[in-house]
């Protein structure tokens, strides 16, 4: 069963978000999503300085078998993207909550978010 990290919040579209206090929040995709996609080979991320909107597509993630839109769970300006994950997207499969993070946003507002418990219950994940 795919792991759900207990300390994070989640969107229904399978993104996770880590609020790092006052600084920008870090966003990635859950292990549930990464496992369902299969081996990820390509990721298209929003540009630094662009504004993303909660619930709207801001990039895409492509595996050998399928492709899926990347949604932002929050609204705000993108402050940083994980170029290492763009270079080697396999890290999204191997470490989705760590080295496989995708982008950081200076959050203006949050979309609807789920607790780890709620997300795990809805998606058959394992805390």
């Amino acid at each position, binding site marked *: 069963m795919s792991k759900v990290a207990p300390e994070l919040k989640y969107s229904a579209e399978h993104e996770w978000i880590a609020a790092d206090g006052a600084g920008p929040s870090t966003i990635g995709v859950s292990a549930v999503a990464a496992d369902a996609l299969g081996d990820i080979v390509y990721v298209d991320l929003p540009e630094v300085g662009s504004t993303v909107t909660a619930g709207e597509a801001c990039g895409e993630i492509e595996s*050998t078998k399928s492709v899926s839109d990347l949604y932002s769970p929050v609204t705000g300006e993108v402050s940083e993207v994980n170029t290492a994950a763009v270079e080697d997207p396999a890290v999204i499969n191997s470490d989705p909550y760590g080295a496989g993070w995708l982008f950081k946003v200076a959050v203006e507002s949050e979309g609807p978010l789920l607790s780890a418990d709620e997300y795990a219950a809805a998606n058959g994940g394992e805390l």
Partner: protein
Amino acid sequence: MTENHTALYGEHEKAGASFTDFGGWQMPLKYSSELAEHHAVRNAAGLFDLSHMGEVWVSGPDAAAFLDYALAGKLSAVAVGKAKYSLICNADGGIIDDLISYRRSDEKYLVVPNAGNAATVAGLLAERAAGFDVEVKDVSAETSLIAVQGPNAEAILLTLVPAEQHSLVTELKYYAAVDVTINGQELLLARTGYTGEDGFEIYIPNADAAALWQILLTNGQDQGLIPAGLASRDSLRLEAGMPLYGNELSVTGHAYSAGLGPVVSLAKESDFVGKAALAAIKEAGEGSTTGRKLVGLKGLGRRSARGHYPVLKDGATIGEVTSGQPSPTLGYPVAMAYVDVAHAEPGTLLDVDLRGKAEAFEVVALPFYKRQK
């Protein structure tokens, strides 16, 4: 839809497979990583459960003449011990299935249709047998099929074959089959596959399949053998330029557009189902001077085309993708597509509409990947 399970379902569960529905069967999609499974087949070996495929025996004095009538190819010309890729068509020339037939004796063939079409093909063969002195026997339900594919397949297989029969295996040619003792049991072994690599397919009664699966995994461990699911099977066959029924082939398509003209034997003396229609289609130049044709597309960017995406030339739709994904072996996106014959020459630059954004692709000759022999 009925969810059929193969005799190896328990083995897949034990190995932690994730499953997918394919042709009415619950089949392993992958065990761990489909990329690792793909690379294992290209570089070492992979073990596939293909028990969802059909097996239909055709036997009797008219077996050869009957298959000449029922299928598009000239099966009577196949030597005993050899196999032939063929099509079963309807009267309009539409493709009902693509299949492999093994000639086991003068009067006996094993016909292997695809999983989703097995019942239809078995039924049609029985129907078309009227007036021929043949027996058509569908043994799909009691037969398992295990494939060992990859450069190390032969070495792995030899560990289970008595020394005095090794030459039967090592001298077995591609698209040929032989009865050989494997793990103490006489079985039909074919040197065929759907991966673009050397490899074997073993037909075995359901009751014995799990034991063979297990010992192949054990004996193949040192040779890098791992179980491989349908995800890698699909990426392997796409790189090898092999069509998949339901993607590249369908009842509304025909052999000439699909690049399978040579599979149709208009020259054989006897009539066959679809002959008149296929002769007319060929005469009209379908797939060569008019209509659409199946081509390979190589992505010039990083994003992949997927099935049903429109193919564009200067913004106008001139074709449709049938299969596509990033090629694990080659490192760039590959796809197959039907495009207007005017834009089908290798080297032609086209676009694929990737979810609203045009991405550049180049028409290339198939296959994308060919193993070094």
